[in-house]
C-alpha cells in the first residue's frame, strides 16, 4: 500500500513547494537559459557589441584541438578519481566495519580529509610533490624516479587524481560504512556457518546488498570529479603541462573569467550541462536496473 498525504486546501501545497521552485528557477533554470543564450552570441568583454552567431561557437569548439583534448582528459580524470576513491574507501569501510578496537579513532581519521577545503588539500599535495622543495619528491628522487610534474603530463595527472580521490574517499567511506552496518548480521552469520570464506561472504552477500550505495556513489563521484575538482587543478597544475590536466570545467573557468571569451565559454558550459544530463539519464535508466533495493 502506498502512503499518501491528502491536502484539503488546494493552495497550501503550492505555497509549500514555492520556495524550492523559486530557488531552482532563480539559481539553476535561469542561469542555464542565460548560458544557452550566451552560447549563440559573440560578445566582447564589456558587452558593447553583441553579434548573433548561431552555432558558430560550437563549431569553433568542436574543431578546437584544445577542447577535444580536454574532453579526453576529463574522462580519464573523472573515471580514475571515481574508481580509486570508491575502491579504496570500500576496502577501508569493510575493515572499519570489522574493527573492534579503536574503531572510532580509525573512523575519525578517515573522515578527516573531508573537512579540508579542496584548495587547501591541493596546496598541501602540491608542496609534498613539488619538484624543488617537496618531501615526497625528495624520496622519489632518492629511489631514482625522475619526478617533475611541471613537465611530465602523466605525473601531473597522477598527482591531481591522488589529490582529488584522497578527499572524496572520506565521503565514500561514510556511505559505505553506513551501508555495511545496515546489512542484517544473520545473513552473514548464516553464510559463515555454511562455511563461506570472508571474501566469498563479501562478494555474494555484502556487495549486492550494498549496490544502492555503490550506485549512488558512482553518480556522486563522477559529478564531484567533473565539477568540484576545479580548485585542485587551479592550485596545482593550471591545466598543464601541455594540457595534460586541462579538464572541461577548468577550461570553462579559464576562458570566461581569465580570458573573457564569454560566448565560447558559455558554449562549453552548455556542452558540459548536456553531458551531465546524458550521464545522469544513462545511469538512472540502465545502471539502476541492475541495482537491488
Amino acid at each position, binding site marked *: 500500500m502506498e502512503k499518501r498525504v491528502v491536502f484539503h486546501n488546494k493552495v497550501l501545497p503550492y505555497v509549500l513547494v514555492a520556495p524550492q521552485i523559486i530557488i531552482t528557477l532563480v539559481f539553476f533554470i535561469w542561469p542555464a537559459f542565460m548560458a544557452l543564450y550566451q552560447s549563440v552570441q559573440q560578445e566582447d568583454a564589456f558587452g558593447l557589441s553583441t*553579434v548573433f552567431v548561431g552555432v558558430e561557437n560550437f563549431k569553433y569548439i568542436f574543431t*578546437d584541438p584544445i577542447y577535444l583534448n580536454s574532453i579526453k582528459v576529463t574522462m580519464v580524470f573523472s573515471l580514475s578519481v571515481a574508481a580509486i576513491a570508491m575502491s579504496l574507501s570500500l576496502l577501508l569501510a569493510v575493515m572499519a566495519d570489522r574493527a573492534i578496537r579503536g574503531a572510532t579513532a580509525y573512523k575519525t581519521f578517515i573522515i578527516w580529509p573531508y573537512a579540508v577545503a579542496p584548495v587547501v588539500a591541493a596546496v598541501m599535495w602540491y608542496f609534498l610533490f613539488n619538484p624543488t*622543495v617537496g618531501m615526497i619528491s625528495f624520496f622519489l628522487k632518492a629511489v631514482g624516479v625522475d619526478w617533475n610534474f*611541471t613537465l611530465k603530463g602523466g605525473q601531473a595527472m597522477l598527482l591531481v587524481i591522488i589529490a582529488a580521490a584522497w578527499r572524496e574517499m572520506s565521503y565514500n567511506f561514510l556511505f559505505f560504512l553506513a551501508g555495511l552496518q545496515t546489512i542484517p548480521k544473520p545473513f552473514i552469520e548464516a553464510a559463515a556457518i555454511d562455511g563461506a570464506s570472508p571474501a566469498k561472504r563479501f562478494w555474494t552477500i555484502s556487495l549486492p546488498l550494498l549496490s544502492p550505495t555503490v550506485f549512488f556513489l558512482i553518480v556522486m563521484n563522477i559529478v564531484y570529479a567533473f565539477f568540484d575538482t576545479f580548485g585542485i587543478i587551479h592550485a596545482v597544475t593550471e591545466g598543464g603541462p601541455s594540457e595534460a590536466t586541462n579538464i572541461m570545467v577548468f577550461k570553462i573557468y579559464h576562458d570566461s573569467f581569465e*580570458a573573457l571569451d564569454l560566448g*565560447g565559454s558559455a558554449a562549453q558550459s552548455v556542452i558540459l550541462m548536456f553531458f551531465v544530463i546524458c550521464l545522469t539519464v544513462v545511469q538512472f535508466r540502465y545502471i539502476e536496473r541492475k541495482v537491488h533495493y
Partner: protein
Amino acid sequence: MKKHKIILILAIVVLFVGINSAQAVTEIQWWFAHGGRLGEKVQSIVADFNKLQNKYKVVATFKGNYHDTMMAGIAAFRSKNPPHILQVFEVGTATMMAAKGAIKPVYEVMSEAGQPWDQNAYLSTVIGYYTTPEGKMLSMPFNSSTPVLYYNVDAFKKAGLDPDKPPKTWPEVADYAKKLVAAGYQGGFSTAWISWIHIENFGAWHNVPTGTKANGFEGLDTEFVLNSPLHVKHIQQLADWQKEKIFIYGGRRNKGNAKFSSGEVAMYTESSAGYAGFKKTSKFPFRTSMLPYWPDAAGAPQNTIIGGASLWVMAGHSKAEYDGVATFFNYISTPAVQADWHQFTGYLPITTDAYYLTKGQGVYDKKPGMETALKQMTLNKPTSNSRGLRFGNFVQMRAVMYDTLEAIFVGKTTAKKGLDDAVAKGNRLLRKFEKANK
C-alpha cells in the same frame, strides 16, 4: 508644537546642506590589484594625495589579483557603475583598447582637464606599450617591469667564474652553465614567465616581430609570426640544453622561483620586479644583468618590453570627476612620488625626471641591479618590433604558449612543429577577437 517640529526639521536640513556644500569633495574610485606590502604602498600614496588637497578624495580599493580586478571592473561597467580608475595588466591592453565606449583615453582626460601636462616627460619605452599608433597615451603606466638575468654570486665563485663578468650571450650562458653543473649545481639556469621572457621579450630584444601589423599596434587583423627561424632556434636550443642540465624548466608563471632561491640553479631569468622577493628568500648574494642574446642575430640587442599594469580611466563619469583623475595622475607622475615608488618596489619609474632623481640620490650605486632593467629598456630607440604587444585574446594565447613549450620540452614535439601549431591556434584566437570587436 507642530510648528516647532517643522522648524526643527528645516533647521536640520539647512545644517546638513550647509555641511555638505562645505565639504563638496569629489570622490574618485580606484580599483587596484596589489596585495601585501605593495598594497600598503598604494594606500599611502593615496593618503598623501588626499592630505595634500581637499577638492578630491581618491578611494583605493583592493580587488584581488589582476584577473579579479579586471573582471570586477568589467562587471561594474556592465551594471553601469564602473570605478573611475581601473588597474589592468598589460595582456589586457588590447581588450581595453577595443572597448571604445567603456574607456576614456588618458590623453583626452588630461587635455580636457586643462592642466599642464607633457607626454614627453614620460619614458617613451614605458608608455609606448599603452599608446595609439600615433603615439597618444591611452592609459597611464603604473607598475612596469622588464625581464633581467639574475645570477648567484657565490655559485659563480664556486665554479671559478667572475661575478663581474656575467654572461652576455646565450652561448656564454651555456658555457657558464656547464661549469656550474660541473661545480655541483643541479642546473645552469631556469626561468619564470617563459612566454613573456623567451618568446615576447625574446622577439623585442632580437628585433624580430611577434606578430604582423607592428605586433598588433596597427590593426586587429594581425597574425602571430612567433615561429620565425630565430624563435625556433632558441626554443629548440632550450629543449636540447635540458639533457646537460644547462636549462631546467621551472613551471608556469613564476612557480620556478624557488629553483633560484634554493640554489638549485645559479642563473634565472625573471622580472626586474622579482628583486625584492629574491632578496627576502635567498641566502646568498645575487646580482642582475641584461638578458642574454644570440650574437649571430642581426638586430640584437635591441631593447626589451615591459610587463606589469597600467591605469585605465573608465567612461561615464562627470567632468569634475575627470578633473580629479587628471589631478591625481599628475600627482603620481611627479618625480618625488615616482622615484619613491620605483625605489620601494623595484618597478620602473615612468618619467625621465624620476629616473634622474633616483640616480642623483645615488641609489643605483648601492643597488646596481635596479638600473639594469632601465638600461636594457632604453638601450635603443624602440622599433615596431620592440614597442610592445597588442593582441586580442592574449590571455588564452599565453596558455597556448605554456602548453606548447611544455610539449616541446618534454619531447612530445619539436620546436618547429610546436611553434607552427601555436601560431595556428593563436591566429584562430585573433580572428575570433577581431570578429567580436568589429
